[in-house]
């Protein structure tokens, strides 16, 4: 009977070859580490006072710090989506503050090379706030799944699509551009809105105060400015549509 082990007397162990996949995965991991490191630095700064309050100056400061960090990173929309999943899993990221996390993701989106970004977030257990913050002109961001509060705040000409529901304060202070929410939005939708369009496919729980411009549609129907305000488009109290 033939002893199969004899075959290995002359056998040379073949080292596994390096293939492009190894380099792709390695580079992807490095990018993710850099993105996470940037976020951790930002959240360390923001977490000092224990409570993260939504204040205009604070948001602006956090966004500037985030932009400063991400401008040196080389990444694409896949990295941003994976970072959102990392935030959700929490394995490599010890703490998550929804506000700064959303601002950081917005900075990543605004600084990305691609003009069109598509993030699949429908599987996430948590929702992030401030996604689409200051989305600039020429950028389009599609968010699959439901999202948190302050979506599209300060939108600056970009197109933001939410393939789900958005929380309160959607489009707060947006300047120009378009926000499309396929399902519902919460209270204070469009608060302090100066321009642009918000289109909601489902219900709007409440329109915000102090809107000085822009248009809000609910299922093709104009809800701001409403008929009596049409022409003035100044302020309107919270309404339930």
């Amino acid at each position, binding site marked *: 009977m033939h002893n199969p082990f004899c075959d290995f007397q002359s056998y040379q162990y073949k080292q596994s*070859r390096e293939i492009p*996949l190894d380099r*792709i*995965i390695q580079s992807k991991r490095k990018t993710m580490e850099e993105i996470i490191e940037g976020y951790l630095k930002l959240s360390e700064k923001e977490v000092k006072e224990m409570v993260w309050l939504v204040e205009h100056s604070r948001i602006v400061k956090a966004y500037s710090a985030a932009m400063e960090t991400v401008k040196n990173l080389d990444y694409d929309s896949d990295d941003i989506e994976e970072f959102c999943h990392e935030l959700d899993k929490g394995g490599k990221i010890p703490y998550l503050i929804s506000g700064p996390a959303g601002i950081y993701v917005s900075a990543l989106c605004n600084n990305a090379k691609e003009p069109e970004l598509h993030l699949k977030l429908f*599987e996430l257990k948590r929702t992030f706030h401030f996604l689409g913050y200051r989305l600039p002109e020429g950028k389009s961001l599609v968010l699959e799944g439901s999202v948190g509060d302050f979506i599209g705040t300060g939108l600056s000409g970009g197109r933001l699509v939410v393939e789900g529901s958005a929380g309160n304060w959607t489009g707060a202070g947006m300047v120009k551009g378009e926000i499309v929410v396929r399902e519902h939005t919460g209270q204070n939708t469009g608060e302090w809105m100066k321009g642009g369009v918000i289109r909601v496919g489902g219900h709007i729980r409440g329109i915000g105060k102090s809107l000085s411009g822009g248009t809000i549609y609910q299922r093709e129907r104009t809800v701001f400015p409403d008929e009596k305000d049409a022409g003035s488009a100044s302020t309107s109290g919270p309404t339930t549509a």
Partner: protein
Amino acid sequence: MSNDGQNRDFDSLLRRIWGEVRKKHFYPELARPQADDQLDDSVALEIKSKRIAVNRAFLDEMSRNLPMETVLEALLDHGVTHYTYCPWDFHTHLQLYQEAKRILGDKDMAQKSSDYFMDVVADTHCYKTKDTPLPELYRNLGGGELDQVMQALYQRIWGEDLGAGAEHEEVSRKLSRVPYLDRGSWVESINRFSKIIQVLLEAERDSGELDKPNPMGQSDFSRYSSEELSEGLKEFAMSSGEPGRFREVVGDFEEELSDLGLMSSSGMGEGAGSPLDADLLYYMKLAENYSIPVRKTPLEKSGDQYPYGHTPWEAGKPYRDIDPWTSFGKIMPGVTQIWERREGETHGEEESTPNCIVMIDSSGSMVNPKQYLSYAVLGAACASDAYLRNSASVGVYNFSDVEAGGRRLLDFSRKRRDIYESLCHYFGGGTRLDMTDIETFRDEKGSDVFLITDMQITNLETLIEYLSSMPNRITAVHIGENEHVRRFKTRLQKRSNLSIYSIQKKEDIPRIVLGKVREYLGRV
């Protein structure tokens, strides 16, 4: 050349290439491949019961552009790597399918996604670690749009020119970021993989091309041996966490698994039997992961010495105790055996395991076993299996509010299906026992009693009184802690024939010892 001659040539080629492939893959335990003329023309190979079958028509077709040796070697490399690397086992296969189904929500799309994912993993591993002609095969394979995407992906991640065009660059770039060779993140990877190809799969579904076979063969379950299937389901029941998730996957393949004899009460390899509910299969397979010991009935005392067991004979020991039957007629140290006698114990009544009455509470305060993992059903199932393994029979008394008809009795039986059906039945409602029901189970030898409940029983006092008067060995298991449990413990914990255990989590189940009697308090 005649057909016979061609067949002989092909057989010798197959034997030679198989020898080389086996050596390359370190001699996997697979049967020698064979040619198959019955396969769909577009499918290159099929694996059934650990045997690769290569499609002659496909080989002939591919041989127009490539030497037949090359095609054959590439196909065998592909088939063997599925066995040696991915999916490796049935459990991994089910896990990958489950994750794909979770993302895609459709059986056919999930099956296709998991097939392609396993192909990418297996072929990339093979390309990285072995000398293989797989790139040449993929350069000439053709196929639908999804196959072209895979070709573009291989081109990108292997760094070989496979002739893929630029039209799938975007999707192949996204796919190339998945860490296919990181075994620990396969479930996460197939999640990502499925999301990326979802659009393509939906397009195939809409154009009716979803059932078009994968040219590199479909990964159906017939490739596994019956032992692998059984073991895989056991592990899958453990990792699923709850019956719903198990039911969803197993339910999708009910027909295939029935054909393989897995969805039957009679068990593996004993024919189809009667169909088995996925929930029963879940608890059956989950219970197989736990082994609970049963104390056998103790030996009877006697004043005489009786042969108990064998020990080796040594020079100087008396000859009268030699057992000629086990000594082969020889008197030689190391071969000859003598009877060891024990004083005061006899084999008159042999050590055996009595039958067991399993009393399970299925009232409204208990978990519905078809919705969530029920520790009560799992505990009772493990106990039943332990008695069945020891050749005893199990009777089931499933109770809720007996006065309202909430009871189910199964007389002593060794039919696992009947036992599990009785255990998994859920009544809901109140909890009230009728002790006369338990009397109907009593047998001469004194069966053991296994009670599993949360103790929230309306007539708990009556039950306590009844159990106090019972001479049988009783194992009482309570789910959770409450006032009733404390009352039960206070009243009965000093009884030597009654052991009380608590189950708060699955891991508590193996701590149970069935039929335990505390000797230091005296025999009952």
